Structure formats: C-alpha cells, structure tokens
C-alpha cells in the first residue's frame, strides 16, 4: 500500500517533468535538423549574464541555429557547471560557448569536449593558460573584454578626477575569483604612480548588495577620512551608496563601480555615483555564438575576439543607456 501511494506521487512528479520536457523537446532534438549550439554561463542571477543571453539569442536567430542556454544556480559552483557541459556533450550539441566559473577547474571538461570533437568558445573569463597547456586542451576562440584593463581605466580616471589625492576603500568580490582579482590588480597598477592616492582598506563583500552596504558601513566606522570607494561590481557599489546615505555623507564620497548595469547608470545620472566601467555582455554573447557557429562549420575563427570596454561617467551615462 505504502509503495503504491509513493509510486502515485512519483507519477505526479513524472507528469510535471514530462510536461516540462515535452515543451522543450524541440530544442533538445533540434527542429528540422537545424544545428544546435549551447551557451553555458556562470549563473542567471546577474543582469550581466541576462544581457549576454539576449545577445546570444539574437545571434542564434540571425544565423538560423537552435540555442540552448544553461547555467549553474550559483556562480561559485564549478562542479555543477562541469556537469552541465558533460550533459550537453552527451546531447551532441554542435558547438559550445562557455563562461568558466573557474579558470582552471573547467579545463578537464573542455578536454572532454575536445575528445567529443565539439568546438569550445570561451567567453568573458579566460582559461588558465598553464592549466590549459598542461592538459593539452584546445579552444576555438576567446571572446571577452579585459577585466584587468577595466580596473586600470577606472584607476586612471580616479587619479585624474582627484588630482592625485584620494583615500580609497576597495570592496572586493568573492576571494579567489579571477574576475575580481584582475579588476583590483588593474586598479592598483593604475594608481601605483600616484603616491597621493592610497588604499586604506580593502575587504571582500562577495559581489552582493547587502554585504556592500554592511562592509562599507564598517569601513566608514574605522576610517572616517575615506573619500573614495571602488567596488569591483556595481551591485556592491549600490550597497555602498546606501551606507554613505545612512552615514549622512551623501555627495562627499566618490563611488566607483564596474559593469555599468542599469541601476548604476541611473545612480550616475542622479549624481549618487561617480563612474563605472561598461562591458558589453550582449556583444559578447553575440560574438560568442557567431564564433561558435563558424567553428562548428569548420571555418577559421580568430583566437582572440576583443569586445569593447569603456568608462561611464555623468557625461555619457544617459546617452549610453538610451542606446540599449
């Protein structure tokens, strides 16, 4: 009896899965023999990757291919991302575009794709050069903009805007994340030549808005003289803006971010934020799918496809967002 009830409830689960599956059957098997390519991203909980997906979908439509978009629930979960890629290899996709959750950790699964003769285009975050060479894995191309360069751009801007005098707090991303590390390195290298610009505190706020708020609030308690905060992404910067308002210091602290998400552009237009760095994830997504389709057809693909990166300040924040 118990087994019967249990089976009946499982049947209910099966029906749900079946319905979901049936709706997606076309993408799974390919409609009318159209080639299928897959875009595997770090997560979908970030506007950055949603924009990337949008660009990729547009390219897939233009090129007349079916696109499968998948991502792990959490940006940190490399093992899950590896599973997704393994499963897509089993589904015999024609080509893969991948934003690695870990520069070294995805190398083994890129090797598996190589073994299955599925071309891989790496997007946004580079593979670790040494790990890739050691494992002998091949990629068709890299599509992305340089996080290190972005860090430099915002650092150079600060030196100019502050006339070489600033006390800076840095809000870092998740420790050990290549993206955040590169941004901080670029920033530090850019201010190196200006002894008047000093970093007085540097703490991780794990890419999150609430932690950006709390961590910066704590930093302000310890260092009341801070006049600039550089957050490694806009989400943390927006948290810091709230902390600044709560401390009654609105307008007296420069806020620098990264990513140029819509909320940050708005904050810049309203004068609450100073500057951010724009990457163009939709262009990345489009270029990635174009490269993947070329590689699938056996056409030549450049090994490195740069996507523009630029400074956003009050001068161009509104204009840029209209374009989107």
């Amino acid at each position: 009896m118990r087994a019967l009830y249990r089976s009946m409830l499982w049947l209910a689960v099966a029906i749900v899965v079946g319905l979901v599956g049936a709706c997606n059957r076309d993408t799974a098997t390919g409609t009318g023999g159209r080639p299928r390519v897959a875009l595997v991203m770090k997560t979908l909980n970030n506007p950055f990757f949603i924009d990337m997906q949008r660009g990729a979908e547009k390219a897939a439509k233009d090129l007349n291919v079916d696109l499968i978009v998948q991502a792990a629930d959490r940006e940190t979960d490399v093992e899950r991302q590896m599973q997704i890629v393994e499963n897509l290899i089993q589904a015999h996709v024609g080509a893969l575009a991948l934003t690695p959750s870990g520069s070294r950790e995805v190398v083994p699964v890129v090797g598996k794709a190589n073994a299955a003769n599925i071309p891989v285009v790496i997007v946004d975050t580079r593979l670790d050069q040494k790990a890739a060479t050691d494992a002998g894995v091949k990629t068709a191309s890299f599509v992305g903009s340089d996080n290190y360069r972005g860090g430099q751009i915002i650092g150079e801007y600060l030196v100019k805007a502050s006339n070489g005098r600033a006390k800076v707090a840095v809000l870092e991303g998740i420790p050990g994340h290549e993206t955040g590390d590169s941004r901080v390195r670029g920033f530090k290298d850019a201010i190196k030549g200006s002894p008047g610009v000093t970093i007085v505190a540097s703490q991780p706020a794990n890419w999150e808005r609430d932690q950006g708020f709390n961590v910066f609030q704590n930093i302000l308690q310890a260092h009341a003289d801070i006049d600039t905060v550089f957050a490694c992404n806009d989400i943390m910067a927006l948290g810091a803006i709230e902390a600044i308002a709560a401390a009654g210091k609105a307008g007296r602290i420069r806020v620098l971010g990264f990513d140029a998400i819509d909320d940050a552009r708005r904050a810049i237009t309203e004068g609450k934020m100073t500057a951010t760095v724009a990457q163009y994830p939709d262009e990345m997504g489009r270029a990635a799918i174009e490269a993947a389709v070329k590689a699938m057809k056996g056409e030549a693909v450049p090994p490195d496809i740069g996507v523009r990166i630029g400074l956003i300040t009050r001068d161009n924040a509104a204009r840029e967002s209209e374009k989107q």
Partner: protein
Amino acid sequence: MLRHRLSASGRRLGTLAGLFGLCVLLWTLTPHFLTVSNLLNVLEQTAINAVIAAGMTFVIISAGIDLSVGSLVAVAGVVLASTLHAGVPIPVALAVSLAVGFGFGLLNGLAITWGRLPPFIATLGMMSIARGCALLFTEGRPVSGFDPAFRSIATAKLLGIPAPVFMTIAVYLLAHFVLAETRFGRYVYSMGGNEEATRLSGVNVRLHKTLVYGVSGLASAVAAVLLTARLNSAQPIAGIMYELDAIAATVIGGTSLMGGEGGLGGTIIGALIMGVLRNGLNLLGVSSFIQQIVIGLVIVVAVLIDTVLKARKN
C-alpha cells in the same frame, strides 16, 4: 524489527519505482538519455553527492543534521591539495585529508554532545568556521594542478566504468555494513528513535553521537578527494550549499528527519534521482530557472509522501 524492515523496503521499492519511471520518461523524451555513455556520465556526476549523502544518512537517522558538510569538503580538499603540492606521497596525503574531515566532524559531535548545542546550531557554526579555515589556509586562492596518478582517482576507467562509480559503491557497501551489521549502527537507529531510552539502557550516547558526526566529516573528505581529482583543483569556495543536495538525497530516499528510520539503500536512489533529473533537464535544454522549480518540487513531494504515510499509520 521485522515490521520495521518490511516497511523500509516497501518505501525503498516506491522510490526505486520513481527512479525507474523517471528514466523511462526521459528515454521517451530524448534519444540522448538512454545511452551507455550518458548513463555512466550520470553515475559519475552523482558520485560526489552520493558519498556526502551517505554520511548525512547516519546523521539524520540519529535525529541530527549536518549543515557543515559543504565547508568540510572545501577544507579537506584544500588540505589534500596543499599536501600533494608539498610533495607528500599520494596515500599519505589522502590519509591526512580524511583525518582532517574526520577531525572536523568530531568537533561538530563534541559541540553537540559536550556543549549540548542543537546539531543545527553547532554545524551551522562549523559551516562558517570551516569555510573560513579553507579560505585562510589558501589565502582565498584555488590550489590546482596535480600528478596524473592522483587525477586517475577521477579519470581512470575499469571496463569502461569511471573510477568514482566504484568508489561510491565501495563507500555504500562499507557504510551499509556499519549501519546494518554493527553495534554502532544499531545505536545510530536507537539514538534517533529515542535518545533517553538508549541512554538508560546503558549506551554511551555521547561517544556514539560524536562518532556519527565524525562519519559525516569522513564522508565529506572522501567527496573532497573525488571533487579535487575531478576538477584538478581544490577551491576554498568549493561545496557551497552541498549540504542541501545531500539532505535532499537522504530525505528523497525515505530517511525521516525525525530520526530512527531510513537507510542507505534509499539514499543512493535519492541521489540518483537528483542526478538523473538534472542530467535529463540539461539534455532537454530546459531553462535553468525551471530546473530549480522542478528539483524543488521533487524534494517537497518526496517528503510529503513520508508525512502523509506517517499520518495514515497513526
């Protein structure tokens, strides 16, 4: 006792039917599911969660919970990786890593038995402490690049079957033996059923409960070995939220969160259901958002079955 066993095997049969039904369904929906290479792929992907869930089963049968397993995977992993990088022979490095996992697990147990903390709180604290240790130990950076001999733990194949599958089978056989055939195993059930009665019948509850958390820590360390070999890297941020997957596999497998009943046969099926489901949803190209909803529904339904059945029984 006989009745207890019968109802357990009946429940397991139901879950097994669920797994089987899921497989048949995926087979009809996509031609890529029922292939030898994909099924081996699923088994390989399930290994890590299955191993952690084996330890979790001990804890949950004893009416406890272990939220620290994901962080223990990270600690054991980075210790393993650093020891290997220091040039220590592989067996020694493995032993060190397993000892670290076991040791952190025992600390959980001591906080619960001697400190009288609820398991939820003690292991919640450990979740953060162990994560911090892993980050501190590596200065936040992943430790990667190992000898092919070590990597063969994840990459080797025997008769075409990946090594992690054999490792999982070995872990389950051993764990099943301990749980079903030893005195310690019987105490795990009786502590979960009625701790006070167990104490009054002369069992050293403190000792055995501490050991239960040691077993869970040990299982996490075994999972860390698999994960490190598979990714060719140990990350201090590895294993975040793995505790939830392990708890899910355990409860889908019919082990009651109230303690005292359940078993490893159910847990392995629970882990496979999660693995097959994720694999199938990927093969079908289902949106990641919908995948989360489906997996959540499966967990809730599985536990619902238990609650409904319990209510009927009483």
